């Protein structure tokens, strides 16, 4: 089972994720229309580029926008989860050893205490986000079954990873479950809301271009839309 998961299934999941997202990116940008969106993308490439970069950059900075600042607790939980969710899968030593073996790739890694801290922060933040979804009426009304599904899929690799890391019970069971749940995430990315891990950049870039070329970003004002 473990061999299957770390072998062919791993390549399959990674391939589906990468190819799927390339296709989605391609379809997103070719689906933009200057006339339907009412944004002259091609006529003002420099302004568009500047707007896009600014829009993405500002929103990647914790408390970098008015919106992030206006909801400080949500922002803490949001970044607490997302920093862990991006950094731990990519920069954990064990993941790098695995990638080196499978793909011949490796890069910067972080120390175990840092990885532990990020993982725990992510898990705690995720529980806060779940609590928020249950408690706040304005979030509850938006929540559907798919949202719970996504949360479950997202949470599983963290929980199984932690159980494996602290060797609670049967290590080989948890590590197998960890690889499986990780691959489920990869497979789900192109086909679900998880596509936002890539499409976030596309959507933000679009609004950045919109404001940069046409709306509030004109006339030399540096709005953080």
């Amino acid at each position: 089972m473990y061999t299957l998961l770390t072998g062919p299934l791993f390549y399959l999941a990674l391939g589906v994720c990468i190819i799927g997202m390339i296709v989605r990116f391609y379809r997103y940008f070719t689906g933009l229309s200057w006339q339907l969106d009412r944004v002259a993308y091609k006529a003002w490439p420099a302004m568009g580029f500047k707007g896009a970069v600014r829009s993405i950059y500002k929103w990647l900075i914790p408390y970098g926008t008015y919106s992030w600042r206006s909801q400080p607790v949500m922002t803490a939980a949001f970044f607490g989860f997302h920093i862990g969710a991006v950094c731990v899968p990519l920069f954990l030593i064990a993941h790098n050893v695995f990638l080196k073996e499978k793909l011949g790739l490796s890069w910067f890694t972080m120390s175990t205490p840092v990885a532990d801290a990020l993982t725990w922060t992510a898990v705690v933040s995720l529980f806060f986000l779940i609590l928020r979804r249950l408690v706040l009426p304005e979030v509850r009304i938006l929540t559907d079954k798919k949202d719970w599904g996504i949360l479950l899929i997202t949470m599983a690799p963290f929980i199984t990873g932690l159980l494996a890391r602290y060797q609670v019970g049967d290590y080989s069971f948890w590590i197998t479950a960890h690889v499986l749940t990780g691959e489920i995430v990869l497979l789900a990315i192109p086909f679900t809301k998880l596509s936002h891990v890539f499409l976030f950049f596309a959507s933000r870039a679009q609004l950045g271009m919109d404001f940069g070329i046409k709306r509030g970003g004109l006339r030399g004002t540096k709005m953080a839309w």
Partner: protein
Amino acid sequence: MPEGTLCNKKPVETAEGITTLLADQSGKKYYEEMKKLEVDSDLLWKTIQNTCKSRIRTWLEICAHCGMCADSCFLYLVNDKDPKQVPAYKIQSTLGEIIKRKGKVDNAFMLHTMEVAWAQCTCCNRCGTYCPHGIDTGIMFGYLRGLCYQQGFVPWEMKIGAGMHRVYNAQMDITSEDYVDTFQWMVEESEEEYPGLEVPVDVEGADIMYTVNAREAKHYPEDLAEAAILFHIAGESWTIPSKGWELTSLAMFAGDWAACKMQVQSVYDAMERLKPKRMVGTECGHAHRATVVEGPYWAGRPDGRPPVESIHYIEWLAEALRTGKLKIDPAKRIKEPCTLQDSCNYVRNHGLREVAREIISYIVEPGYFIEMTPNKEHNFCCGGGGGFNGIGLFRKQRNVGLKCKRDQILATGAKLVIAPCHNCWDAIRDLEEEFEIGIRWSFLKPLIIKMLIVPEHLKPVDEDEDMDEDE
């Protein structure tokens, strides 16, 4: 397919059509007929397939349902944080649902959608700047209004407004002759006070082509005279076009894209005909948005810009004050607590956030200007934007919507609200009428005229001197 005689899927394209619709008081029969109007699901779905592309589809798909847009919406806030007023919910439960059902929705659904599209969103685009994914619900509501309009589910006043643009190239039934006559008559009225005052009509190659909001000609003609006076004193070379003088677009509020194109094209034609250096539009927010920001796209201009540089009235005013073309008498500056209403349509949606403040620095005695909170690009809608002010059917909802601006104004302690936007001006007038908080409100033109230093050579001389001699 039951189509009403008044309420149907056809746009109004004749003066008689408009008269007939207007004769139906408050749209009583119109809305009765709407209850039986059938949805053309095939047309709806086909239109969506042709026009709903990656941007909106991705927005609907990746919305994380995080609810961060909730607090950004003034209608959510003033309706006791009703979860049904969360922007993401409003759009997902209407446009999102129509797409999910591939256009197969019924009359009741469309009636509900119409209410959400016109009474629960003013297309102020504030939520768009609060969403981590950059999802602009206001844009989607604009799109949804287009779908509703095509199906005939559009508020009575909006249907009439769009029809007016189709028939008169103006939001009201004012012909070119009416317009020029009114302008000339108003200028004549002020000639005694400002000798040499005139309104140059259809002059080619002027520095400025001035365009207005039709209601100035119909209901507030003094605004026309004030514009003429200010251009006159500033020594500008200016003109008005006899055709293509209307800056506004109720068609934009209605979602009648074909009428939007016809309307804005009439203004661009005037620009091509008269070849002015610049166009200056009156103190109106949505009109600027329609003609300067969105218009080029309706007219199919790939550079997204009007044929000549087009600026808002506050940009011209700030420039005239900066360069000394207009001079303010410091003794006459405003000396009472005052605040400024930032219009969504040219501040958040066109970046003009510092311009009005520059004007304030010239006309308000230091210490008397108080900013609203929030302000600039984060300011809340006046409460009546996007056509909300004008729809009788949703007047109750609109009046609730005004509470946000009322509280913002009350918090400043201002007695005077400067509102360089027709829509905001109306909303603030209505909120004073509704809640009686003891404020006044004003456009910039009349305020500036009161404190202007008129150069000697432009003053009426003879009579004063005669009187002096008589004494």
